């Protein structure tokens, strides 16, 4: 039979006296003294009684003493320490890395980009947190951190911690923009870089008009008119010329006949019949010559009329072509409506998807933040998987509490950036003031944002943004330049049932354009007013341009178009039209040539006439009897006047 472990080793004098003092009966004291004899070193050691009965008694006595002992229970304390202290010690050693991982995950969820947290040092006793580096990777370039915060120091409010709240009295550090990374960023799932799809694929509409499009500006009627006029004139010319040739042949034949007549020998003086016949033949030839002279006169009149018609047709055709050309040129001049529509289309096409995408991203992140921060106030209980509930419904009591999360004073500054704020966080009702955040990026951006979640607040988020000629670009082959924005924005609430929750309006100036191909190297700046609204998952962007600001654009675009379209315009006049006009012109010239031919014919007739007149004079002088004969010139006298002789 073995006694309790604690009595097996030698007992010191003090310990033995204490145990003996616990006993009241003399038999028990004697039994103890007999069982623990004093050794030479002054210590008391257990000596097993010889009798089995005494051994049982001392064993029971020692158990009784053991149960009645005072002082700590070592085993229990060890178990307690294992259960309570192990997590505490574990946190002391691993709290920093655990908190860093948690912070990284939280910020990645909120921002949707890769977050780097380095050298997080939580000092609970000091009430401070130090963070060596907090970096937000760029959305577009995985090798660049768009914002890097270093040497962050936060002083924690212990009074808030006692109320299970997290309030940072002051947060300060340095900030830097666009810092290169050593390794590529790993974007969280579901947040794949969509920059390419957002910026690519846009082609700015231009005013260039192709010759095919401009050809439509020349109506078919003009061509039809030209062709008809030319055909008519040509036909007339051909007919006239054919008839003239025939008449010319007739006149030549008549001339031959007159020559033959003149070469005939005179009859005998007695041959009265012969003289009569000769005279009648001369009269007949004179009459024919007179007829031909009249015909030539008719041809002359026709020539005059046709030439006049052809000239008129030519002028009419030329006027029609000029009118069409003028119509085409007028179509190249830009009016206010056209330019306004063009700019609105361009800006909405470029900025619409980007603004909408940015708004949706911010909205998603803010909603995530709200969901995260309002978990504690939710009116819905939550169950973690199939296990126990993690929390129930929160019932509100009249308690004055600090906000759940707040940074009372924020100061982050760097070479090019400065971020300052007061009361940054949530629970503005509890904090008694709105969050005000001021961000200034040197020579780029200046903004002030107010977030006010108080019940009396008009807007949940409001603020203004002004940029100082920040660079912008739609894509590698698309326009870009510098953008200057003066904008105000406000968000009433994140209630999805309302329309137009978010609205923003302001002025934007696009300047220093990268060359727009069709406008040449000098593109004027473009100021415009915008209005953006979003709600119910839909976004709407409207552009309003001051007509006065479009004047330089109108000048540049018109000049550019006229310059570029000069050759196009020339091409616009169909070559057939020019050919028709030239044909008409050559026809008129041809008629001028034919006028000479008419003169020749007239001279020829005059020659025949004079010869015939001379012959008739001779004939009159040689008549045996007085026979009155008319002068050939009396018949043909008027023919000379026809030719202006």
């Amino acid at each position, binding site marked *: 039979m073995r006694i309790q472990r604690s009595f097996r080793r030698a007992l010191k004098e003090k310990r033995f006296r204490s145990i003996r003092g616990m006993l009241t009966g003399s038999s028990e004291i004697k039994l103890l003294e007999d069982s623990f004899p004093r050794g030479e070193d002054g210590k008391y050691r257990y000596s097993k009684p010889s009798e089995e009965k005494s051994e049982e008694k001392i064993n029971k006595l020692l*158990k009784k003493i*053991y149960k009645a002992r005072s002082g700590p229970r070592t085993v*229990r304390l060890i178990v307690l320490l294992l259960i309570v202290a192990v997590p505490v010690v574990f946190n002391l050693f691993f709290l920093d890395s655990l908190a860093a991982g948690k912070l990284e995950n939280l910020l990645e969820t909120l921002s949707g980009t890769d977050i780097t947290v380095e050298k997080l040092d939580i000092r609970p006793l000091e009430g401070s947190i130090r963070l060596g580096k907090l970096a937000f990777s760029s959305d577009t370039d995985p090798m660049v951190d768009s914002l890097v915060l270093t040497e962050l120091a936060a002083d924690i409010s212990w*009074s808030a911690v006692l*109320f299970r709240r997290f309030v940072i009295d002051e947060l300060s550090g340095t900030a830097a923009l666009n810092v290169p990374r050593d390794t590529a960023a790993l974007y969280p799932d579901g947040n794949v870089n969509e920059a390419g799809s957002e910026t690519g694929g846009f082609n700015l509409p231009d005013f260039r008009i192709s010759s095919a499009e401009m050809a439509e500006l020349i109506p078919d009627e003009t061509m039809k008119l030209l062709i008809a006029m030319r055909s008519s004139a040509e036909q007339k010319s051909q007919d006239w010329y054919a008839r003239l040739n025939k008449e010319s042949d007739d006149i030549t034949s008549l001339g031959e006949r007159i020559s033959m007549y003149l070469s005939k020998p005179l009859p005998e003086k007695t041959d009265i019949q012969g003289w009569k016949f000769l005279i009648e033949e001369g009269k007949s030839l004179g009459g024919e010559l007179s007829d031909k002279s009249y015909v030539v006169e008719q041809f002359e009149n026709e020539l005059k009329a046709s030439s006049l018609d052809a000239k008129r047709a030519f002028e009419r055709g030329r006027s029609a072509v000029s009118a069409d050309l003028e119509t085409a040129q007028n179509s190249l001049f830009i009016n206010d409506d056209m330019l306004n529509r063009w700019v609105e289309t361009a800006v909405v096409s470029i900025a619409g998807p980007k603004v909408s995408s940015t708004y949706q991203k911010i909205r998603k992140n803010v909603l995530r933040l709200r969901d995260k921060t309002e978990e504690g106030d939710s009116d819905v209980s939550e169950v973690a998987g199939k296990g*126990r509930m993690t929390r*129930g419904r929160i019932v509100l*009591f009249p308690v004055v509490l600090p906000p759940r999360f707040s940074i009372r004073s924020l100061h982050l500054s760097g070479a090019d950036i400065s971020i300052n704020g007061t009361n940054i966080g949530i629970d503005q009702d509890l904090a008694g003031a709105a969050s005000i955040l001021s961000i200034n990026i040197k020579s780029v951006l200046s903004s002030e944002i107010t977030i006010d979640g108080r019940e009396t607040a008009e807007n949940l988020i409001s603020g203004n943004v002004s940029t100082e000629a920040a660079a912008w670009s739609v894509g590698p082959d698309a326009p870009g330049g510098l953008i200057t924005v003066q904008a105000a924005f406000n968000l009433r609430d994140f209630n999805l049932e309302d329309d137009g929750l978010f609205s923003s309006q302001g002025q934007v100036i696009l300047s220093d354009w990268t060359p727009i191909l069709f406008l040449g190297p000098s593109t004027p700046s473009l100021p415009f007013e915008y209005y953006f609204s979003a709600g119910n998952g839909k976004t709407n962007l409207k552009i309003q341009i001051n007509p006065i600001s479009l004047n330089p654009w109108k000048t540049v675009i018109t000049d550019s178009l006229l310059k570029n379209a000069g050759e196009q315009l020339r091409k616009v006049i169909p070559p057939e039209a020019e050919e028709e006009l030239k044909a008409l012109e050559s026809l008129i010239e041809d008629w001028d040539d034919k006028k000479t031919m008419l003169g020749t014919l007239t001279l020829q007739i005059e020659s025949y006439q004079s010869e015939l007149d001379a012959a008739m004079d001779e004939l009159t002088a040689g008549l045996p009897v007085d026979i009155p004969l008319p002068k050939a010139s009396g018949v043909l006298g008027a023919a000379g006047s026809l030719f202006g002789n």
Partner: protein
Amino acid sequence: MAAGITLAFIPGLTLLWFLFFIPMMLIRINQAAFLGMMAAGKLLMPLVDPFSEGLGYFILNRTGLYEPLGRFLSLPGTGWFRLNDSFVSGAFILGIAGWPLWFLLSLILIRLYRKYLAVKVKTFFGRLGEKVPLVKKLGLAVSASRKIGGAV
């Protein structure tokens, strides 16, 4: 065992749980039964949680509690009790109020164990001890600790 059941009701990692657990570890009770019952009770708690959450919400919404509980929660540190959470307060109230019931339940469980299971369990561990020396030593250690403690 009753204390184990009560602690099984109270959600872990709350200040309330530690405030009950630490004293229980320091007073003279059967720690094995306490810890074992707490662990076993935690397994059944998902079935009870909806009821305890409803109970907590019902009680917290009593007008009589509005002012006093508000004053209590205004004290520094009381926020860590999470008493304004219907789930925590309901489980806490159910665990505390049901203590006598858990005690009686524990007595019944012990009697049933001793009547039907104790011999079989001892026999089983005895046979196991004969084959595995380590189990035998553990059994001796357990029996020694029971003699030292002696409480239910």
